Structure formats: C-alpha cells, structure tokens
C-alpha cells in the first residue's frame, strides 16, 4: 500500500471521475467526490510525511519500466507540499459546493460538475508528482481542459467568453511548452527530468566543435519558450490577461478552487524546470533569468495592485490581486537564495489559503446577495457579520498583517531582499502592501460604514454549509500565521533541495 501511495493519490480521483459519470445522480456523485477529495487529502498528508523522511524523495515506476524508457513518478518535499495544499483546498472547496452550486448550476448537471472537478484535481496533482516532461504536458492539459469547462458554467454569459479566452491563451501556452519539450528531447534523447538534468551537462560534438549541451542555441531557445509558456499559465504580468475574467465569472466554488491552486501549480512547474531540470547554475549565472523575472514581478505587483483598486466588481478586484501575488512568488524565486525561495514557496502555500478563503467568502455573499458589485455590499458587515469577518481576516493576510499567514511569507521575502542589501526593493514591497490596504479598505468602508439598503426581508447570514468551509480556510490562514513548523519547515527543506544543498 505504502509503496503505491504516489499513484494511488492520482488514480483515486481519476477513477472516481468516470464513476460519477456512471452514477448520473447528483447526490451520489457529489458524495463520492467529497469522500474521494478528503481521502486524497489524507493520502497526501501521509505521502508528505514519508517524502520528508526519505532522502532523495520517493520514486515510482509506472508499468514497472525504468526511466528513461518508462514514465517515473518522483515525490520530494516540494511535490509533497504541493499535493497537500492542492488536495486540502480541493476537499474544502468541494465541501462548499453542494449548497453553493444549487443556485449557480442546473441540478441535472451536478454529476457532470463533480466529474470535471475531480478531473481538474487529478490533472493538478499529476503535474506535481510526475518526473517525466511529456507526462507533465498530458496532465497539464487534463487540468486545463476541465478548468475551461468549469469556468464556462458561470451564470453570466461573460463566463463563456472568459472560458474561451482562457482556452486560447492556455493552449498557446501549452503549445509553447510542447515546443520546448520537443527541443529539449531533441538535444538529450530523454524525457525524464532527472535524466535530462544530467544529460544537459554533458559535452557533445557539434559541427566539429565540442560544447556543453546547455550552451547550445537550441536549449537556450527551449528555455525561452518554456518561460513564456509557463508565464502564461501562471498569469505572470503581462501575460495575465485571461485571469481576471476567468476568476470573476466562474461559479464561486470553481473560483475558490482554481484561484488557490491552478496558478500555484504553474509556479511549481517553473520551479521544477528552472531548478531541477536546467539547474541554478544555468538559469541564474549563464542567463539573466533572475533580473528579467524580478523586473516583471515588480512591475506586475504594482500594475495589478493599482488596477485592483479601480475595480467595482469585488471578484475581479481579488482576481487582479492574485496577479499581484503571483508577482511576489516570482520575486522570491528570482533571488535564487534559500530565504528567497523559502519565501516564494511559503507565499505560494499561504496565498492559496488566503485567496481560497476569500473567494469562498465571496461565494457566501453571492449566495445571499446575488451580486459582488461594490455598491451592493453596503452595510453587509452588519447583515452578514461572520462572512464579512472572514473576508476581512483574509484581507489582512493579503496585506501581510502580523498573526496572519501573509505576514510570514512577506517576512521571509523581505529578509531575503535585505540579505542581498537591496533595500530599494524592500521599500517597493512595503509600498505595494499599502496598495493592498487601499483596495481592502474600500470594501471594508462600504460593508461596515454604510447603511444597508432597505430590503424585505433583510439579508441573512450565509448558511452553515457555506460558512464552515470558508471558516476552515480562513482559520488555516491564522493557524499558519502562528504555527509555522509545517509550512515554513517544509518550504525551507524544499528550497534547500531545489538549490541542491541536500541530496
């Protein structure tokens, strides 16, 4: 059992998806999906525990074929942490679903929704455990196609155009990644990540010269295509255009789930490629990858935060805020130092909790108000005190106030900056937090300091079925703000593994 854990984690939701399709009945399908999500979460926790105690990580050969002929799964601390994060959020967000989708999706489609949700989860998990480049592409497409379908279920017709735009940009990104994988395969003859990392370092005879594969122009171009492709998928500024509409018009549960996981998995892919496959030496010393990434990250943080301030649709506002937060993660990666990477990874983890929680709180508002326009939120702090309290706690995390998880990640990022002595960047980071204060405050002001509109009957607090999952995620945001052993501990380990300090 234990030796099969990496594959069980993937095939449990994968097999449950067609089973939901066979059931064709909404309650049974949702119940099955829920049971599967929570048991996947349990398996992920177990796997992380094993992975952290196994030097070099766990390897699983699919079909019993050894790499490079067959496909291999590889779980190290970073992958394990991602699995816990994704499956945990999937489980909580799906617990939110049965009540929330009642209004948003026709009842006859609920079992199809459960199928696509499980497939999306499978795809995201599969990306994190695979040690094979082409297999990564296949699971990327599973998660992307199901995400397009899930987003298109939104009630507004703009959900359709948002899904289409995402589909076109996402497919361009995936095709870029496919081209890059092809070029890399062409120069190495392998698709296995660890094997490729080795073979990129070897010397070859090229047109009567002896060169290291790393230095060939083909690999250089492959690196560029990968960077662009993954940047589209992770919505790094200025390739983020698909994200705001996709998050704003998708059903509440879908936004909560995808906002917390999809872009994070893309950041994970970036880490895998840049550190595991290409290596720190190549990415940061041969190429000026750090400077480029840092510049885009900083511009992205400011541009997206500023745009967020001017949004009147709160879901869209949070979506722009997500683009800015991806900037922080990219910033952490661009330092290529232990503190910087730890900060980036912890921020990935914490931001997933914060944004997931905030989008679920938005789902509670949608459930009662039917709107997420700022003007419709007047006085809602008094009508729905628990929901708004959760939202504000999440907002504080976004700003980075102490005691919240957001503080921990910003702390590590700032210390990584100061370690290098780049204090202007530290100042910029503090300034950008002020922008977050502004957009969070706009909502707080409307929700708490304006009179609620006279409706009959007055708006009520969201039902417990919605409040509990929201509370769980927001509570986790506080827990991980105070107790950092798991998140920072694992992230630090992952950072050291990526930098090659420990085997």
């Amino acid at each position, binding site marked *: 059992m234990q030796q099969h854990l990496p594959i069980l984690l993937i095939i449990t939701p994968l097999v449950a998806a067609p089973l939901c399709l066979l059931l064709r009945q909404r309650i049974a399908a949702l119940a099955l999906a829920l049971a599967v999500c929570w048991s996947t979460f349990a398996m992920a926790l177990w796997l992380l525990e094993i992975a952290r105690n196994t030097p070099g990580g766990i390897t699983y050969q699919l079909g019993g074929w050894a790499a490079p002929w067959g496909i291999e799964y590889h779980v190290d601390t970073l992958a394990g942490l991602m699995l816990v994060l994704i499956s945990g959020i999937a489980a909580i967000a799906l617990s939110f679903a049965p009540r929330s989708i009642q209004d948003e999706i026709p009842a006859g489609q609920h079992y199809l929704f459960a199928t696509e949700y499980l497939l999306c989860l499978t795809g995201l998990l599969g990306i994190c455990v695979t040690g094979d480049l082409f297999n990564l592409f*296949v699971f990327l497409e599973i998660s992307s196609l199901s995400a397009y379908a899930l987003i298109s279920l939104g009630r507004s017709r703009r959900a359709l155009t948002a899904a*289409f735009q995402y589909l076109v940009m996402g497919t361009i990104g995936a095709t870029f990644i496919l081209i890059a994988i092809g070029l890399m395969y062409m120069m190495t003859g392998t698709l296995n990540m660890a094997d490729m990392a080795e073979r990129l370092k070897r010397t070859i005879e090229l047109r009567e010269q002896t060169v290291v594969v790393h230095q060939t122009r083909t690999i250089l171009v492959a690196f560029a295509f990968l960077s662009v492709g993954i940047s589209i998928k992770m919505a790094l500024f200025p390739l983020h255009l698909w994200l705001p509409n996709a998050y704003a018009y998708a059903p509440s549960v879908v936004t909560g789930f995808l906002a917390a996981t999809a872009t994070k998995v893309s950041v994970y892919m970036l880490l895998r490629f840049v550190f595991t496959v290409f290596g720190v030496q190549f990415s940061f010393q041969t190429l000026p990858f750090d400077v480029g990434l840092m510049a885009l990250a900083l511009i992205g943080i400011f541009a997206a935060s500023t745009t967020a301030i001017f949004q009147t649709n709160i879901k869209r506002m949070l979506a722009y805020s997500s683009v800015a937060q991806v900037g922080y993660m990219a910033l952490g990666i661009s330092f290529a130092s232990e503190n910087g990477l730890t900060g980036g990874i912890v921020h990935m983890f914490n931001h997933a909790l914060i944004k997931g929680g905030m989008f679920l709180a938005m789902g509670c508002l949608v459930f009662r108000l039917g709107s997420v326009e700022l003007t419709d939120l007047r006085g809602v702090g008094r009508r729905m005190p628990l929901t708004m309290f959760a939202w504000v706690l999440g907002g504080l995390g976004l700003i980075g106030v102490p005691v919240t998880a957001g503080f921990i990640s910003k702390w590590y990022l700032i210390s990584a900056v100061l370690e290098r002595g780049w204090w202007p960047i530290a100042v910029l980071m503090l300034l950008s937090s002020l922008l977050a204060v502004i957009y969070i405050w706009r909502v707080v002001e409307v929700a708490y300091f304006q009179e609620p509109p006279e409706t009959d009957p007055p708006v009520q607090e969201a039902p417990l079925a919605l409040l509990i999952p929201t509370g769980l995620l927001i509570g986790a945001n506080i827990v991980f703000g105070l107790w950092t052993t798991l998140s920072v501990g694992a992230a630090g380990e992952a950072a050291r593994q990526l930098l090659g300090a420990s085997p």
Partner: protein
Amino acid sequence: MSHEMNTVLGLYNYWIVIFLMMTGFYVVIAKGNLVKKIIGLNLFQISVFLLYLSMGKINGGTTPIYPDKSFFADLQDQSSTMPVYSHPLPSVLILTAIVVGIATTALALALIVRIHEAYGTIEEDEILLQDQEA
C-alpha cells in the same frame, strides 16, 4: 560542400515547419473571428507535430514495424542486412498530442456555439462592444 550549404540542406525543412507554425500562431493572435482563431490553433498544433516527427526520421530509414517471420528466414538465407528504423518515440508522443488537440478543438467549438447563442456574433470586437455597453 561548404558549411553554409550543409546547414541549409540539413535544416531547411525545420525552417519550413517553423514558417507553418508561425502562420498558425499569427492567425490565432491577429484574427478576431473565433472560428478563425481555432483554425489557426489547429494549424499551429499540426505544425508542431511535424516538428516532432522530423526529428525521428533517419535518412534511408523505415517505419518501425517489424516484418513478418518469412523475412527473417530470408535474412539468414541471403545474408541481407537488417533495415534501419526511424525513431518510434516521436510518433508515440504525437499520437497523444493529436488527441489532446482534437479534445481542445471540440471544447472550443462547443464554447463558440454557446457564445453565438448568447451574443449573436462570433466576432471578438462585437462581443467586447456588447460587454462594454452593458
């Protein structure tokens, strides 16, 4: 033969494939009609398939399918040589990629049908206009 000549002869079909890829890519990002975009996406992807398959080919090679038993009997009798096989792995990868491509196309076209029902048009600028007016 000169070095440049070698380069051109050795790489020209990759360049043509790149030209095809970029034509498709241009259609995706420049055209406003949604169906046209998907057509462009198809061209782009088919060309990437050709890029992959080109790298598997060996001059004078043959399809990686083994001949039947009688061939091997002949082989021993006439001491003819074993054929050279082109690389099978790119074919395998592209078979998977084609399936992914048609899956994406089907979903995109279904979205287009729904967009047409909701907006009455499949032109990007007209959809944008309707969204702004509202």
